[in-house]
């Protein structure tokens, strides 16, 4: 029994190939059925996002399965294998487990630490389990992957810093104002970038949005989207004292906002700081304003630098995350191995022997004058009881695992708490 993963991602395949291989949600149930019938996977699931297409499965023979999977994709997608075979990666067992844990923890993402992938993985799993394509191993595997992802997120700072220009603007604003809920944001110009940044600000608690634009109509429109108010373009300078954060992205060829506009505004607002964000190229705001006390000016390049810095930081955190993943891979492999028949039977015997030995000792100590022969008799009786009691469960799991079923093994392990027992023994011996 082996875990395998086969797929392509943004690193191995360009978007032209990825879009050809992607599985639409509606086609996945049928694909899962074929994976079971034609490829012979005991359990399977399909993860298909814009950055990756991956099939996870449980199989008996790793190499045969690989070829069958490639054939399956070729027929299902109606593509010659030569077109995509070079972009595929194929992992089994330890590597497969490691890969999936990394995917779940967003260590394999284009933007490391982005949060969507975990949700996508959960959906893919839900779909597969709804169609009864998953079983004991994939169920446990996925739940483990989700919990690894969660602990990576909480124990490292992988997702803590902004990695988009518009979010970096919010992050800087927080460093100036702290709480943003009572702040006012003004949009000068109604560009797309401005709108995106404004949306981030509103999501972070900003309630007041002012919009100004050369065409008042457009300003009105955008203001309505944010429940804000529109301002005539010719008047906006006189409103600067109300503004805490100003986002500018007009097509103006010369500076729109200069120190002489800000000086009276600052005075009027009792020198509470103003954060200016200039997203326009050519720039809208005179760089000299950054020298004024209480004015903080960031342009697109400055924000891009913040983003670059943050991405470096995420990469450092990713190294710490890899260490966490490695430990979890180890643990999961241990669990998989426990599903094998031989160690389970061995553990079962050891546990039962231990119990009978302990009980025997108790009994013998209360009858000190038994003869050697009588003692022997008692011992062999205990042994016989143990063996007879164990006979049925052992035959039961032996029979089932001949058909490749691991569930009975897992049930027996849980019934007798064999995992705890093994852990205990390991702790004692180390």
């Amino acid at each position, binding site marked *: 029994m082996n875990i395998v993963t086969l797929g392509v991602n943004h690193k191995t395949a360009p978007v032209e190939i990825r879009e050809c291989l992607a599985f639409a949600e509606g086609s996945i149930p049928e694909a899962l059925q074929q994976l079971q019938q034609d490829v012979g996977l005991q359990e399977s699931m399909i993860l298909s996002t814009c950055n990756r297409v991956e099939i996870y499965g449980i199989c008996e023979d790793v190499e045969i399965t690989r070829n069958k999977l490639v054939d399956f994709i070729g027929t299902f997608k109606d593509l010659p294998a030569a077109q995509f075979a070079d972009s595929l990666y194929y992992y089994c067992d330890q590597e497969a487990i490691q890969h999936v844990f990394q995917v779940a923890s967003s260590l394999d993402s284009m933007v490391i630490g982005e949060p969507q992938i975990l949700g996508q993985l959960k959906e893919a799993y839900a779909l597969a389990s709804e169609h009864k394509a998953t079983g004991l191993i994939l169920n446990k595997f996925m739940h483990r992957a989700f919990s690894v992802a969660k602990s990576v997120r909480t124990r490292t700072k992988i997702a803590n810093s902004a990695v988009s220009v518009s979010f970096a603007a919010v992050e800087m604003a927080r*460093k100036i*104002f702290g709480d943003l809920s009572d702040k006012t944001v003004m949009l000068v110009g109604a560009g797309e970038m401005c709108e995106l940044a404004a949306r981030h600000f509103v999501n972070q608690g900003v309630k007041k949005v002012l919009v100004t634009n050369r065409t008042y109509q457009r300003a009105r429109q955008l203001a309505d989207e944010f429940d804000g108010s529109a301002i005539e373009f010719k008047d906006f300078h006189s409103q600067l004292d109300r503004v805490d954060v100003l986002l500018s992205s007009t097509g103006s060829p010369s500076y729109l906002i200069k120190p002489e506009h800000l000086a009276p505004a600052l005075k009027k607002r*009792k020198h*509470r*700081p103003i954060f200016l964000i200039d997203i326009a190229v050519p720039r809208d705001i005179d760089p000299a304003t*950054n020298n004024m006390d209480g004015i903080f000016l960031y342009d697109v390049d*400055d924000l891009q630098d913040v983003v670059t*810095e943050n991405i470096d930081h995420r990469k450092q955190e990713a190294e710490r995350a890899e260490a966490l993943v490695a430990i979890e891979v180890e643990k999961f492999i241990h669990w998989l191995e426990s599903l094998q028949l031989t160690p389970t039977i061995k553990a079962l015997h050891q546990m039962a022997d231990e119990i009978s030995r302990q009980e025997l000792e108790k009994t013998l100590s209360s009858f000190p004058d038994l003869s050697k022969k009588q003692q022997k008799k008692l011992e062999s009786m205990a042994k016989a009881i143990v063996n007879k009691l164990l006979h049925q469960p052992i035959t039961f799991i032996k029979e089932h695992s001949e058909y490749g079923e691991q569930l009975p093994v897992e049930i027996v392990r849980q019934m007798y708490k064999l995992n705890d027992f093994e852990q205990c023994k390991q702790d004692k011996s180390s």
Partner: protein
Amino acid sequence: MMFSSYSLLLTGALLCYMLGMLAGFVQIYRTSTKTSKAENWLITGGFILHLTAFAWRFWESGAFPVTTLHESLSCFSLFLAGIYLWISRTAKVSILGAFINPLTTITLLWSMLIIQQVKPHPPALKSLWLPVHVIFSFAGNALLAMTCGLGIMYLIQEHLIKTKRISNLFKRLPSLNQLDQLSYTCLSIGFPFLTLGIITGSIWASLAWGSYWSWDPKETWSLITWFLYAALLHGRLNSGWRGKKAAILSIIGFVAIMFTFLGVNLLLSGLHAYGAH
């Protein structure tokens, strides 16, 4: 024997403060709840040892122990640690310790370098007004030291934001607004204490020396300091002084405090001489 127990307690406190200070520095480079907890426990532990030493000295000498330079420095350090613990517990400002605990440590270290045996007190110092005057003054001074530390933090953070340097320090320092607000809070509590310190001092002076105000250097300088802070508070309340301007003034104000507290005694002479002089 007693003397050595006292210095042992102080050494323990100093060691705790030093390690706490180091834990504070470590947090600039990497935050973890472990170091932050360690810092908190070390400063708390240091404070308890220090307080015990202070009580010991009080009991030993029979008078509120601020009569020598050694005792005064130690007492100021004790107030700094206490006020820091209080502020850091209520305000939750990250890495504040890295900016305050060095002052606490240096003050106690200096105090230990000039440690002395208990000496008989001049009769003027055996008064209930002494502890009252000193407690108000030192509580005020320690709060204004916080204002100064927060001012330094503000100036650094403001500089980092203006010059767009996204360093570790930038990430750890709190927002400008939080620093400014807390600095204002410390000022508005510290200033009344400073005022009460001067008033009680003047009442005590009238009882001990027969006049409320005699323009000796310490009195003059404390008045200058008081005016500086009065101006800062007034500017904050009425003229919208905040941010950088307020931060710079709070640093200047604290320099004046340190001069009033130490410079006057070490450089000028007057009625307020410590027993050692």
